[in-house]
Structure formats: structure tokens, C-alpha cells
């Protein structure tokens, strides 16, 4: 298939996934703002979120104070912020439009309808209920998009590139979500199991749809170590790093070309380290350090995918 087409499909999927993960991140923080806790802690939560996305600087330039409503306005609704949910939904739709001939009409219509509906919303001064509904809606539309890709698309290269984008983005996002919370929680030195901690960790689990899964897998107290294990190392957890990387590796194998051997090797190596890794050794390195390194590896894979397939071979 055309390299440019593959590029659009890959980014269509990445932006769709990114919009969903942003909604998840913002949702969990805005839920926490409803808990009885100091304004300072709440502010720290938002700062950690903005920092980990890499937008603290850009936010400071536009807003004086770090409040829930400012951060949500900036991260959810601000069209001048290229990484806001609105911008991601729009970018997903524009990428789809550029290759609408390659997509099934259902996929195109789904992404177009999402964008049209979002355009019709009045999103500036939403109150908490409406914000919550909006995040739910973004997640729902992302589920629909994935479902229609899964249900209607020919299993050819186009399909593999769409999933490659999805899983690279999801790996990146799960690592960031985990890192934000870890940052925020552990330095405070409290023993796991305290009430505040319980809410924080359970909110994190909720944000990646893993709360019920945790209960079913561990049937026990929520501890940071197990949360990390679930989100990093478990293959049956759909948003875990390991799960994402095994999918990335698989889809890379399916689109293999003359120059992609090294990329495939690196993806395989990363997947193997997650496959055979133990949570103890992750904690020996330090979870934060581990995640930072992981994010670097994911970024490297993304760059290599672009180089090998998307910006195609020169003449």
C-alpha cells in the first residue's frame, strides 16, 4: 500500500487512541477533585498530569492558576492546544478523510460523525456532570471506532498499520498514567493501604478500566506493587505494557519489509523483557526510571516505524 496511506491510517488510530487516553487521564483527576482532600494535593495531581504529557510550559503561558476547570478547558476543549481531546478528535478525522477511499465507509462515517457531533457541542463552560459525560462520550466513540475497524476492515496491511498506531499509543499512555500516579503517591511515604491511597490507586485502576480486573486477579488489597505488575507485566490485561508490546510486535511482523528487520528486533527484545520480567526487578531499577526508559523505547519504535514504512524509501 502507499506509504502515505499507511501513515494516515497509523495516525488516525493513534489520535483516536490518544483522545481516549486523555479522557481517561482527565476523568480520573477530575473525579479525585471530588474527594475530601487539600487543594494543594489536587493541584499537585494536575501538575503531575500536565508535566507527564509535556504541556506544563504551554499551560503556564495561557493560564495563571492550576485549577480543575483551567486544566480541563486546556486539555479537553482548547482547539489551539494541538494535544487537546478536541484537537485529537479532529486530527483523527482529518487523517481518515485523507484516506477515506481506503477505509470502509462505516469507519469513515464513524470518525466523521464523532467530529460532527463534537463540533456541535458547546464545550466551554461545562460543569462537572457535563465534563464527566463528555469524557464518557469520548471513550464511547473510541470504542465504536475500534469496533468498526475490527468488524469491517479487510485484514490487509492497512489493518495492521491501524493497530500498530493504536498499540504504540496505548503503551505510551499506560506508562504515563502509571508514572503520574507513582510520582504523586509514593514520595509521600505513606504506607499503602491508607484511605487516601486507596482512593488514588483505585482511581488509577478505574482510569484504565482495570478496577474490576484487579479484584478478580488478586482478590486482595490494592497495593502499588500489584497495580504496577498488572499494568506492566500481565499479558491478559488489555492495556498493559506487555499486552501492547506483544501486539506491536505481532503487527510489525505482518508488515515486515526489506528495511524493517532492526525495528522488529527491538520490538521483540522489548516484548521479551516484558514477557520474562519480574516485578521485583522493575522495582529494583525503580518504577519511575523503568517507565522513563520504556517511554524512550516506545518513542524510538515510533520513529523507526515512520522511517521504515511511512516516509517511504527514496527513489
Amino acid at each position: 500500500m502507499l506509504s502515505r496511506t499507511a501513515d494516515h491510517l497509523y495516525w488516525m488510530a493513534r489520535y483516536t487512541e490518544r483522545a481516549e487516553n486523555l479522557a481517561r487521564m482527565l476523568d480520573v483527576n477530575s473525579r479525585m477533585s471530588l474527594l475530601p482532600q487539600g487543594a494543594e494535593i489536587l493541584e499537585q495531581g494536575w501538575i503531575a498530569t500536565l508535566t507527564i504529557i509535556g504541556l506544563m510550559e504551554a499551560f503556564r503561558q495561557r493560564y495563571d492558576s492550576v485549577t480543575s476547570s483551567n486544566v480541563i478547558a486546556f486539555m479537553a476543549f482548547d482547539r489551539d492546544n494541538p494535544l487537546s481531546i478536541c484537537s485529537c478528535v479532529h486530527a483523527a478525522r482529518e487523517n481518515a478523510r485523507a484516506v477515506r477511499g481506503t477505509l470502509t465507509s462505516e469507519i469513515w462515517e464513524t470518525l466523521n460523525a464523532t467530529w460532527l457531533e463534537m463540533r456541535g457541542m458547546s464545550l466551554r463552560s461545562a460543569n462537572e456532570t457535563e465534563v464527566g459525560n463528555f469524557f464518557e462520550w469520548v471513550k464511547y466513540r473510541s470504542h465504536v471506532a475500534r469496533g468498526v475497524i475490527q468488524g469491517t476492515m479487510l485484514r490487509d496491511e492497512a489493518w495492521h498499520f491501524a493497530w500498530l498506531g493504536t498499540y504504540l499509543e496505548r503503551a505510551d499512555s499506560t506508562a504515563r498514567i502509571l508514572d503520574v500516579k507513582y510520582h504523586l503517591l509514593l514520595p509521600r511515604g505513606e504506607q499503602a493501604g491508607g484511605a487516601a491511597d486507596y482512593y488514588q490507586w483505585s482511581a488509577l485502576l478505574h482510569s484504565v478500566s482495570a478496577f474490576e480486573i484487579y479484584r478478580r486477579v488478586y482478590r486482595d488489597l490494592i497495593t502499588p506493587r500489584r497495580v504496577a505488575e498488572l499494568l506492566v507485566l500481565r499479558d491478559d490485561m488489555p492495556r498493559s505494557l506487555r499486552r501492547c508490546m506483544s501486539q506491536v510486535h505481532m503487527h510489525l511482523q505482518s508488515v515486515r519489509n526489506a528495511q524493517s528487520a532492526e525495528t522488529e528486533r527491538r520490538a521483540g527484545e522489548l516484548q521479551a523483557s516484558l514477557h520474562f520480567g519480574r516485578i521485583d526487578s522493575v522495582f529494583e531499577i525503580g518504577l519511575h526510571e523503568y517507565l522513563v526508559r520504556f517511554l524512550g523505547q516506545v518513542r524510538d519504535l515510533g520513529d523507526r516505524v515512520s522511517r521504515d514504512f511511512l516516509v517511504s524509501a527514496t527513489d
Partner: protein
Amino acid sequence: MLATPYDEMHASDGGVREHYKTFASWLARTPSERVAHKRAEADTLFHRVGITFTVYGEDAGTERLIPFDIVPRIIPANEWKHLAAGLKQRVRALNAFTNDIYHSQEILKAGRIPAEQVLCNGQYRPEMQGIDVPGSIYAHIAGVDVVRAGEGEFYVLEDNLRVPSGVSYMLEDRRMMMRLFPELFALHSVAPVEHYPDLLLENLRSVAPSGVNDPTVVLLTPGAYNSAYFEHAFLAQQMGIELVEGQDLFVDDEFVYMRTTRGPQRVDVIYRRIDDDFLDPLVFRPDSMLGIPGLLAAYRAGRVTIANAIGTGVADDKSIYPYVPEMVRFYLGEEPLLSNVPTFVLRRKEDLAYTLAHLRELVVKEVHGAGGYGMLIGPAASKAELEAFRQRILRSPEKYIAQPTLTLSACPTFVDAGIAPRHIDLRPFVLSGREVTLVPGGLTRVALREGSLVVNSSQGGGTKDTWVLER
């Protein structure tokens, strides 16, 4: 004032014409709320499917719907038979003419068309002189604009032989009508048009360079911000071919390749939706970002087919138009079945004098204009507009032609105040490959403003489904 237009649905005595009777009685017994509801549904569907065109000028990149009217334009079988034969004949002659011009120029030698008219025309491409193209076909796809003035009285308004557009609306309008009012298709036997993409693909494959057994066909688009992008994507999808941009193609050793995820892949036929000027920056406009450097060299070497061919503009130019009936006689030895609108060529002294004396009655068009821009409709113009246009003509008369104001036929159409007649035209799409074919019907455009004769979508025109009845 214009004469009363021919009404497609009603005879002059007010009765409903035979071929509209079934539709008229359906409309009469269908509750108006249901019709209103269906019209709203059509709007939503068009938006969701993203059947839009991009407006130039205003907010860059604004996507708009072309208004769709639910009253079909119905053509009875016998009228279509005549039209189809006339269209095929005309396109055959136009292809023969283009081939002749780029080879031995017999028609010029015979003195049937003044040579300077052709050779000094900006649309004549000296780069094409002496190049053989597969099957001697230049206009693989022609969109011929036809209007009706009276009973059985059809005129060709212009021959679009470069990159004619609109066929996706023909197909989507049909799909929409069948979705909204399936019962109408049970009541009428409407000739199908849905196989157009198959015919087109077949046609494009048939003109591949010789020796290529399983040709790779691509559709070349200027990109997602072009006004007709929807159509490009739609046709590529329907034909199952790659939709490429200039940056996706490159030329190596006079072969054309596309950049794919598995390396370069040969391309044999390019259905291009980009004007000649932008195709190859090495030969035409050097600032073109849309084209492919070296494409013309590959084309001249016979390694790739470009459809439509480069240089077809010489045959559909408004200054050449008056000679088309002569082409039919010269190349085919037949009398033209479809009439031209009588045309005054203002580079001729006597035509200029007549036009200036009768400006109020005439339509004046720029020879190189398109899309309804830069034209004067005498009967509808104010004194000041007439005067301004007179000055423009006097400055450079060779840039203009003039025609009597035809009273385009009108078809009942939904407007704010209910149903009222609005002027329409028809663009059938004629395909030339191994043979000349066309699907029954075409795109009917309608001028939605009362009294307006301008049907172009860029000027507020809409579209209708076009039904050719099989009996």
C-alpha cells in the same frame, strides 16, 4: 425578459407530461410532512457520509453540501436514445480532432478550421505533437453539458474534456433517492447507473500501454483540500485503486512508480484529476507542488497512460467549440445529431459589432473561463454591469464569445415557498476506450435561485437525481 421556459414536468396546457404522471400522482398522495422529513434526512445523511465540496475564497477549507433536490429529472426512453447517439458521435469526433491536431493536422490543411485558431491557442500543447497515445484516445472521460430549450430541442453548451467532475453526485444522488424513496423505484423502471465505476475501470485498463497485461491504475488527486476531493476518494474506492498525490509517485528511467510500504511499485495508467499545468514541474509550471517531475518524459516514451491525455483542452476550448459540428462532418462523414448553440466569436469583426449592438440579449463568456465565473447574462444584467462588460470586451475582444440567451428548461424543485420550477442542465459522462459508452443519465444541476440560469455548484446550484426511463 426571458421567454417562458419549457417545463420538464408540465405541458403548456398545465397537464402533466406522460413520463412524469406516475411521479406526480405519488407526490400528490404523499403527505407533505413525510416529504419534509425525508428532505431533512437527506441533509443529515449527506453530512455524515461527508459528501461535501470545498469552497474556495471564503474560510479556506470550508466543507459545504451541494443542495440535493428530491424531485427527479426524468428523461423518457426515446429522448435518451437520441441524446446518447448524439453524445457518442460528438465525443468520437472530438477524439479524432485531437488526434489529428497532434499529428498531421488534416482538418487545418483542409481549411475547415483556421490554423491560428488552434495553434496559437493557449490550450494547444506543442509537447504533444507527434506523440502516439494508446488507441488514439485523448478524452477518455468527457462531461458534455447539454441543455434543453424546447420539445426535442437539445443543445450542447460545452464539452468538458480536461478533468470533468460531478459523476460522484450522479451516483450518490441515486443512492440517496433509493434510500429515501424505495417505493418510487418500484413504480418506475429507472435505468441503473451504479455500474459507472466498473465501466470506468474497465475503460482505463483498456488504454494501458501496450505489453502491460495486468495494468496498475491509480487516481491522481491534488489532495484533501481540493474542491472535488470527495469525488476523487469516492471513485478510487469504488474502483478499488490507489488514490495518490504527486508526492506518492516518482519517475525512474522513464517508468512511473508509487512509493509503497514495500518499496516502489510500477504504475501503468494514471487517471488524473489535476490540470495539465501542474502535472510535471520540469515541463509545465515549475512551481507546481502537485505534479511528478519527469512524468511527461515517461508519457512520451509510452510507458504510462494519462487519462485524460495532456492537451485535450485544445478541443474543449470555447473558441474551438463553434467548430465541433464541422469536426463531426469532417471526421465521421455524418451530420451532427446534437446542435451547438449559435456562437459569435468576438475576434471576428462582424460578430463583435453584432454582439455590442445586442449585448442585452446575449450571454457573453470568457473563452478560458470555467465554473460560471466571468460571464455576463445580458437579460439579467443591470445597466452598469452591461457597460462595465462592454468595456472589458472592447479591451480584448478575442477573449470572449457570445451566444443568444437560451431559456433553459425548468424542472419543479423544492424551494422555501413550496415547489416551483427552476432551470436545469444535464452533464452525461461519456467514456472512450475500446468503444464509446455511457451510463443512462448523468448529473442534473439546478439553479436554485429564482430565474437564475447559473447551475454551477460554486454559484449556489444544486443537484437532482436523473432518471432515464427504460420504457
